[in-house]
Each structure stands twice: as structure tokens, then as C-alpha cells.
């Protein structure tokens, strides 16, 4: 295979407990640590392993968003990606637009495989891969926990509600990855230095001629409803009594 595209979304770090702004206009992201969406790191790790096995020649990381996303692309390059493309936009576009941007890049790069995280941990949408596959008219294997390439085909194990589903797909295709696919490598200092010399191309989203999707407008943000503080019991007898009291067993 020639080329794999991997999406890296700049997202609030996994360990940050996000707060809603007091005026309900959004969530507080000022001064908050930003990282690569964790699922996207797994996607990149898988692409790198495929290249290292000699089954692909190049791994290109792509981010769509504000110019600060360069930081996440540099991290991706330090992990081992060959090149990076930043499609720069003010804020993060709607997902259909993102899928259309990926489709443009797939065509430009003649990519045969796109590997994405199964969801971003900020918007929790879980849509981009499926939308890209739809627009591209190609297979999607979502929530992957194992990927085995075989020439112009792939066998993908998917984590579904009832267990594991195995699909055979023809390439080109889109794969979205779940947590258990692999453990991403740590970036070493020399790799960070090397990554500074790797090519990072910036394209303005307007230059791709992508038509935005009909917009969903986020009109208000609020904290979740809390649960009422419960009771503590001292022993199993107290626990059994409390459960039975509620008629639950």
C-alpha cells in the first residue's frame, strides 16, 4: 500500500475535568491542557505499525482546526509520521465539512487507507469516519480492536455491544479505532528534534473548495444534573437492608 492518512484532533486533555462557563456560552478551554485526542493516537500507532511491517510506504497525519493544532501534528511527527497537513480553519468545522476535507485530501494524496479515532473525547460524536466512508463510497470498519491487512483487503475485528464482529473489507477503506487496538508508543526526545525537520504543510480550508454542511448550532451549555448525595452504610447487613428497603432485590 502506498499511503495511510491519519486524523489527529486537538482536544482537551483526557485528564482535564471540563467546566461549563458560568454564562452558559461554552466550556472553559482557556489555559486548559490540550492534547491529541487519545483515540487518534491509537490510530496513528496502528498506521505506524503497518508501515513498519512494510505494508505501507508513508503515513501522513492530518489535523483540521486552528493553527495551534500544529502542536498535535508535531507530536504525531515525533511519534513517527512522515508528513503532516494542517487544514486551517477558525475553530473546528462541522463534521460533514471535516469528512469532505478528508475526502479532498484522500483524492490529492491517493490514500488507500484512512485510520481515525472512533470518537473525539470532547464532542463525543463518533461520526467522522462513517461520514468519510459514505462520501467516498468505500467500506467503513468502525470501533476496530484488531486490523489484519492482506494485500488489497483487510480483516477487521470490531467491538460491538454483543461481542466482537469480524468484517472483511476491500481497500481503499476507512477504519476507526477503539481503545484496545494497541498501546501508543512514547515519544523520545531525539524524535521531537527530528520531527521539527519533517514537512508540515498548511492549507486554508477555504482553498479546498469544500462546501460546509447544513450547520447545527450550539445554543446553550449547562452542567449536568447532579445526583443527590446518598447514604453510607457500615456493613453488609446495613447494605442489604438499604437495598431491600428500596425494593431492588
Amino acid at each position, binding site marked *: 500500500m502506498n499511503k495511510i492518512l491519519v486524523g489527529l484532533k486537538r482536544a482537551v486533555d483526557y485528564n482535564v475535568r*471540563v*467546566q461549563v462557563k458560568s454564562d452558559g456560552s461554552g*466550556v472553559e478551554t482557556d489555559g486548559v491542557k490540550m492534547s491529541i485526542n487519545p483515540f487518534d493516537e491509537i490510530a496513528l500507532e496502528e498506521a505506524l505499525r503497518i508501515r513498519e511491517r512494510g505494508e505501507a510506504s508513508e503515513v501522513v497525519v492530518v489535523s483540521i482546526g486552528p493553527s495551534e493544532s500544529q502542536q498535535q501534528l508535531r507530536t504525531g511527527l515525533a511519534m513517527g509520521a512522515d508528513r503532516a497537513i494542517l487544514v486551517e480553519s477558525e475553530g473546528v468545522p462541522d*463534521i*460533514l465539512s471535516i*469528512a469532505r476535507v478528508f475526502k479532498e485530501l484522500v483524492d490529492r494524496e491517493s490514500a488507500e487507507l484512512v485510520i481515525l479515532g*472512533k470518537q473525539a*473525547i470532547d*464532542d*463525543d*460524536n*463518533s461520526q*467522522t469516519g*462513517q*461520514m*468519510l466512508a*459514505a462520501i467516498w463510497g468505500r467500506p*467503513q*470498519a*468502525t*470501533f476496530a*480492536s484488531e486490523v489484519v491487512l492482506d494485500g488489497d483487503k483487510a*480483516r477487521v475485528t470490531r467491538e*460491538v*455491544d*454483543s*461481542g*466482537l*464482529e*469480524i*468484517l*472483511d*473489507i*476491500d481497500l481503499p*477503506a476507512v477504519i476507526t479505532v477503539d*481503545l*484496545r487496538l494497541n498501546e501508543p508508543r512514547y515519544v523520545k526526545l531525539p524524535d521531537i528534534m527530528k520531527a521539527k525537520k519533517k514537512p508540515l504543510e498548511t492549507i486554508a480550508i477555504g482553498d479546498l473548495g469544500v462546501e460546509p*454542511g*447544513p*450547520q*447545527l448550532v*450550539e*445554543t446553550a*451549555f*449547562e*452542567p449536568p444534573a447532579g445526583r*443527590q448525595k*446518598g*447514604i*453510607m*452504610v457500615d*456493613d*453488609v447487613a*446495613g*447494605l*442489604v437492608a*438499604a*437495598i431491600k428497603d428500596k425494593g*431492588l*432485590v
Partner: protein
Amino acid sequence: MAKILVIAEHNGETLNPSTAKCVACATQIDAAEIDVAVLGADTGTVAAQAAELSSVVRVVTIDDEGNDPAIAAILAPQIVALADGYSHVLGPSTAFGKDLMPRVAALMGVNQISDIMSVEGSHQFKRPIYAGNAIVTVEAPTDHPVVATVRTASYQAVGGGNAAAIESASVDVELPSHTRFVELQTGASDRPDLQTAARVVSGGRALASEENFEIIYKLADTIGAGVGSSRAAVDAGYVPPETQVGQTGQIIAPDLYIAIGISGAIQHVTGIKDAGTIVAINKDEEAPIFEIADIGLVGDLFAIVPELTEALG
């Protein structure tokens, strides 16, 4: 007035309860008509079950060998053809719906709304983001169809007793052959399914081994509960992935949820927020799980759980 198409989830024989929950969500929308689409190889049995759901006007079926088992790339173009004339197309935010609905939306040229947890208007919905740390209100354009998934844990299934009309449909679309089902591996378990179980017992990293999970299974079987887990327990290999509850696993709403040796990271808590009663057993009294538990017990799970099983047996 709205005209809503709900996409049924099923395994060829039984309608998944997620469908009745999507219908419940649909009834919250000012609806002229709620129809259910059943796509399969031989949809008779499942269509009959869907026709019983309260508030459903019509069940529309497409029978095609290629529709069993369900593959998103094959179902999506058929659903797009069926969806003509509908103002809303809803599916469940289960693995089935999350895989399928964005593909449907993209083919229809619209953005998709994920995980509707409440209906504020025909084109206005609330959904959780950041692992449930924030709730956002989303407005969809009124001049395009709404395609969305429904957070099933937010809805009670509609009742039965209906006898909706069942109509067979045929659509003229070419079905792709680029995606082929090989097999489904399910853990052979007689325990209740997590999505529908009235009671769920979950174990976390503190169980410390696959063998130790035996005490979780024993408690679960004693009270007829499904078995869940935290991400840490799955990552450690103690339990299979389909047991994972939380942001990236299953979102569930049992009447009783017993969290054992689970610290209560926000990513886990988001999966159980709608449970009726949450019981937490943990040796660390500072564990965040106690902040959301209705009943808490601090202590050694290896002593408590067998004693609890004995007491409830």
C-alpha cells in the same frame, strides 16, 4: 408536522429494546407520524414485534439477503431511499446506530446529532459532551431532515399492545459488495444483556485478576444481574470488552447498579448516571464513586462481596 422514521435494531429474530426507546424519543417530538423501518433478510418476525410498539403508525420492511447481518454500508443507501419525505430519521446510540446513522446522514448531505438525551423542540435537542461533563443544546436547521442517534439510557421503552400496519417496501439502489460479514463472536453467557438488565453488577481494577471476577459473577447470578466493568478492568484483561461501561463503552440505565472496586472516574460515571440506584463498594472512602452513589459501603470487597452474595441468596 413531523414525520419520523425510526431505524429498527434487531438480530434477525428479536427486536432490540433500543428501538422502543427511540420510539419513546420520537413521541417527544411534535409528531404527525412515527414509522419504523425494519431491514433484514426475512423481516416477518421482527416487523410483527415492531408493529406492537405503542405510537407506531406503520412498519416499513425491506427484505434482502444482503441485509442479514446488518452492515452499515449496505443498509445506509436503502435507508436514504426510504427516508424520502421524512422530517426526522432516528436510530439508537448503540454500536449498531453509531456505526450506521452518520453514514446515512452523510449520504443525505446533512450533519448528524449524536446521543439525543432530551427533546426541546422539533429541531432542538440536548446531548452530552465531554463524557457528560457538559450538556449542550443543539439546533438543527428546519429546512433539512434531522438525522440523529438517541441516547437510549435517557428513555423508557414505549409499551406494546399496538397493531401498526406492516408494509413491504422495495428500493432501487445498488448494494455494495466491498464489505463482508465474517462472524460474530459473543461470550457465551446466559446473563442479562447490559442494555436491558434491571440489575447490573460491575467490577473494577481492584478485582486484580480474571479469577477474582468469579465473586462478581456469583453475586450477579444470585440477583439475576448483568455483569459490567470499568475500562481499567477490561484493559487489564480481567473481562471482555463488551462488558465495559462508560464514555467509550456502554451507557446503561439499570434500576440497580452495584459498582465494586471501581473508583468512579468521570468516564465511567457518565455510563451509569441514569441508573435508578447506585451502590458503591470500595476500600477507599475518598473514591469519587461515593459522590454519586446512593448507598456506599467502605471496606474490603473480597470480604464484603461473598458476604453480600450469601445474604442475598
